[in-house]
Every structure is written in C-alpha cells, then in structure tokens.
C-alpha cells in the first residue's frame, strides 16, 4: 500500500490551490469584466481556460513534499505549462499579456482612425525566467531538509495527524 502521508504536503497544496484560484481565475475575471468587457485586448474564454489549467497544474505542483522525485517531475511539467502560457498568453504568469507567439506580445488597435499594431519581443526575458525557475526546482531537490526547522513540513505533519 502506498503511504500518501509520506508524500503529501497539505499546506502547499491548499496554498497553491488558493493562490492559483485568486490569480488564475478570480482576478482575471473581475479585471476583464470591468476593464475590458468588450474583449478588445483580452479573449475572455482563453483567459478562463488558461486559468483552469493553471489551477489544476499549480495545485498538483503543491501536493507533494519538496525533495521528492514526483514533485521534481511535476515541476518540470509546470515549466512546460509556463512555456504554453508564454506562447498563448493572457494569464497571470505572462502578466496578462496577449501573446501571439513564444515571448511575443501583440496588440492591434485604432488611434484617431489610424490603424496601429504593436509587437514586442520579450522571448529572451521568458528564457531567463524559465532558467531561473528550473534552477529553483533543482534547489528544492538538492536542498537538505531539516524537518524540525522547516515550518511548512511541521505544520503539514499537524494536518496529517
């Protein structure tokens, strides 16, 4: 029998669930319905679908304790999900930017009857962020965890009890 108590960190599970619900669904919903109700800049459906993906994957990312192989693997999956967000865009992890390619921000509009389209290439920035996130993932894997000193794990054990 698999003992899940060895693996699960309840604190990070609920922390990630709440954070992803707030930043992935609730804030984008209120921002779009109040600031861009006609969908000029943002595609409401894309944002909501991305929000659901973010809630699912980021919550999974928080389920397992640090220094576990499965968390490292899900972390790798999380980086792949971020690459998806930086390509499709309109999510909290792309700063709600409407993307039209990997690390490519695009906006079309009309100012004083002159059509203007603006593109901004921030792919280098995305690559650096992803590398830093990957480094952080490795840090969590190799860092020796001293459970007594580590608050999250202590609280998590109380939850389990």
């Amino acid at each position: 029998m698999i003992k899940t108590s060895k693996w699960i960190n309840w604190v990070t599970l609920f922390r990630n669930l709440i954070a992803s619900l707030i930043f992935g669904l609730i804030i984008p919903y209120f921002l779009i319905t109040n600031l861009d109700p006609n969908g000029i800049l943002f595609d409401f459906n894309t944002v909501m679908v991305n929000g659901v993906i973010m809630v699912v994957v980021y919550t999974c990312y928080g389920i397992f304790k640090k220094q576990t192989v499965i968390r490292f693997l899900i972390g790798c999956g999380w980086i792949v999900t971020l690459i998806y967000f930086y390509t499709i865009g309109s999510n909290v992890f792309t700063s709600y930017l409407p993307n039209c390619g990997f690390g490519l921000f695009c906006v079309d509009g009309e100012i004083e009857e002159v059509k203007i389209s603006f593109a901004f290439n921030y792919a280098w920035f995305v690559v650096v962020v992803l590398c830093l996130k990957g480094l952080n993932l490795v840090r969590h894997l190799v860092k020796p965890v001293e459970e007594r000193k580590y608050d999250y794990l202590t609280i998590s054990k109380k939850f389990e009890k």
Partner: protein
Amino acid sequence: MLKKKMSKESLADKLSSVKFKEESKGFRKKLSIFILITLVLGYLFLFLFNVVVAVSAAGIRIDTKNFDRSSADNETIGIEGDIVVRNDHWYSLDINDLVIEMTLYTEDHDKVYDKKIEKEVLPRLKNTEIKLDFTFSSSDIDSETNETFNSLYRTDKLIVKFEVSVRYTIYIMSFAVEIEADIEE
C-alpha cells in the same frame, strides 16, 4: 500478488524522496545556497535591466516630416520625406539596427510596392532624421497591374503602411510598430 505489492512499494519509495548519501549533505547545502544567491542576483538583474530599457524606450518618438509626392514626369510615382527618430531624452540609449519598411497599397488594400531602409546606429541624446525616397515606375510593378499604376498616378490618395522596428543589440530586445496612414496629395 506479493510481487505486485512489492513493485508498488518500490515505486512509492522511488517517488517519495530522493535518497542522497548522508555525506553529500554538506555539499548539497552549499550548492543550494549558491543556487539561491544566483536566483536572487538573477531576478534582481532581470528587474533592473527591464526598468532601464523600458524607461529609455518609452522616451523614443518617431515622427514623419515633409511627406510629399516627388516625381515630375509621367513615368514614375514618388513620395519623399523624412522620418525623425527623437532619442534626445537624457535617459536614452543608443539604438542599433533601425529598419523602416514602407509598403504602398491601392485603395482596395492590395499590396503594390515596398521598400526597406536600414540604419545601423542611432546615437543617444540626438534626433536623427532619416530620408525616405520612395520612387517607383510601372516597371517596378507587375506588368499585369499596369492599370494599377495608372490609377495610382491619377489618385489623390495613397495608402502607405510603415513598419518600424528598433533593436537594442546590447539588450537583445526589439519591438515593432506598424502604422497605416492615408497620405493625400
């Protein structure tokens, strides 16, 4: 059955934690501290880097100046004028590799002719005027569209699309602005 249970347990053991040797604890601690310092410096650099570039790029203005028809004969159509890149704010940076692409369209928005102008360095603290000479004859346009040339020659209204891209080579950063404007004679 017992075998199945054993394999499940071994999978659980494999996934539950990473089994490092006890002797590697000191090395892992040093490595994690080194990675943490790299992360802090990396994010700090990223933040400051973007602030500097965003602020300097925000001050750049690109204007058009003295745009008019230039040709005096029946064989060619020409538009000439200047594009002024205002990069004279005190927090400006040198711009590298400025590319201006002009495309002429018919009133039905069919692409007729285009021209690309490149400028390698636009120094900081200066306004740079770039001369655009956009002259073409009927031979520059496809023979099938000779009628298009004649109608363009007669019309009062030319639709030109400007695509301007600026690149900071040092900062490996680029952006493009595409403007569509009607130019009346």
